[in-house]
């Protein structure tokens, strides 16, 4: 436990050295919701089949999912910075297991994600009139935690396997394009062409966003959500296992 808390201390200290990081980390999902959500609602109305659900309410889960993805992508860059500074290899000689190393890092990300979520939900409901399902809030928190951890472990695998910054940059750009747009983050999958729907349903971001959507505003099919929850749980565990393995093979 002490090494996990030491890692948390280290990550917090580093992040606190730059106020821009702190501001952007905490407020960017809300900014996205206010700019993109309000923009789409104003220009396209509420293009959803679900009765009584505004685009802002629908997109809330999308921004929370995007936040998990964004935190993971940004913090996976820290592996490159740590490698450049030499501290990455030194830290691997510290008295902690490879799992503790990753859990310590993810704990910091989870901490940021929860504050982000509180700000987004609090100001989102106040400014945009989004109605939340209070009874499902604990499950929403669990989904945010799992999602943040899962995507961090996913990105870690690539950050550890890829040695060049420029290649990693290209890979993350592809990930952003494929995972975010071929999912239910910005639009529902039902009206989409069949091939698009198949890709979307196989996309872990869809699983996470669907769960976030259900636990935030109660929208979703319980049978499908059950399967998506199991699939996403397996995805998170598999990514953790493979990330630890990748770290051991450094």
């Amino acid at each position: 436990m002490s090494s996990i808390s030491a890692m948390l201390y280290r990550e917090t200290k580093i992040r606190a050295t730059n106020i821009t990081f702190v501001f952007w980390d905490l407020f960017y999902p809300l900014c996205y919701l206010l700019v993109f959500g309000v923009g789409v609602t104003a220009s396209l109305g509420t293009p959803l089949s679900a009765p009584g659900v505004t685009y802002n309410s629908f997109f809330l889960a999308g921004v929370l999912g995007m936040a998990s993805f964004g935190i993971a992508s940004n913090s996976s860059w820290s592996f490159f910075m740590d490698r450049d500074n030499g501290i990455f290899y030194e830290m691997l000689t510290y008295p902690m297991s490879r799992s503790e190393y990753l859990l310590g890092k993810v704990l910091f990300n989870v901490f940021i994600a929860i504050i982000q979520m509180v700000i987004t939900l609090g100001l989102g409901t106040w400014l945009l009139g989004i109605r939340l399902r209070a009874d499902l809030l604990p499950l929403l928190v669990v989904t945010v935690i799992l999602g943040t951890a899962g995507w961090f472990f996913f990105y870690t695998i690539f950050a550890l396997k890829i040695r060049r910054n420029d290649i990693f940059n290209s890979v993350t750009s592809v990930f952003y394009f494929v995972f975010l747009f071929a999912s239910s983050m910005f639009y529902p999958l039902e009206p989409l062409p069949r091939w698009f729907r198949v890709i979307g349903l196989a996309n872990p971001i869809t699983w996470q966003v669907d769960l976030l959507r259900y636990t935030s505003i109660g929208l979703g099919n319980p049978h499908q959500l059950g399967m998506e929850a199991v699939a996403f749980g397996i995805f998170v565990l598999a990514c953790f296992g493979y990330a630890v393995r990748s770290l051991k093979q450094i």
Partner: protein
Amino acid sequence: MIAGRSPFALEVDNIVKVYPARRNGLFGACSEPVRAIDGLSFNVPRGSIFGMLGPNGAGKTTLLKILATLLQPSSGHARIESFDVVERPLEVRRRMSMVLQETAGEMFLSVRDNLLTYARFHGLAEAERGAAENMQLFDLTTEADRKVQDLSGGFRRRVQVAKVFLVKTPVLFLDEFSTGMDPILKRAVMDALRKESARGRTIVLTTQVLSEAEELCDDILILNKGRQIARGDLHALKLLSQDVYEVAITFESLPAGIEHEMAALHPVRSRINGNTLEFCVKAREAEALEIVAALAKKGRVLRVEIGGASLEDIFVELTQKAGAEAR
């Protein structure tokens, strides 16, 4: 596994490390596999200062990385304080600290925070006091609140080395620790290392500065191409080069053509430093004296010095011999 308490801090048993072949890009050629460590075995007693010497690519850093659990060996076993580096890496890491060859630091944190963060990872009580003492030892007190990214390379290295003196792990690995250090600080660190060793801490270091190894190490391993080419204390190594002499002849003015005469004698190495001809020659005692007498006749001699081989001579001779045998 623990098999009773061994008298050795380090036990290395037939370690081999082969780096696999790599393709250089999509269309590039495939490199050959590299056998960086080739069947090394040795033990290091507790409380000793053990030096690993060798030319670039000898396998020193690879071996240290295996011992520090950063790399896994291809075959063989290594134990630190009786714990196997592959089977019990966490137990090994709890008993060691390391200064890497590359400068490593938390660039965005202050010097003080670098030390405190390191102390936290090692579960150190009284970290503030330890950090203050170490900053004093390494002359870092005035830099305590500066970010490491704003320090010069030499100061960054100080911070890196200062950290390992904060903790009291039984084994300390230093990979070319003195890189970028000024002579005064280097001396202070060497004194501190001797004190740590006297308290029972085992120190394993690699260095290219042979005078450092000569001054510090109780036991020296000379490596070349991943293999042991010599092992022992300084005295034992000098016996391996019994017929090597180091000579310095200072002339009033350097005789013309002395470089050519020197080259004809095929010395291990030679150089001219002002009016002084310095060379190292491999010859029996009588022959060495004849060479000196012959050279001394070339001009008016102010001073002659003849000594046994230095560690540098031994190192050059042994690595050259090993290279020639490999060819």
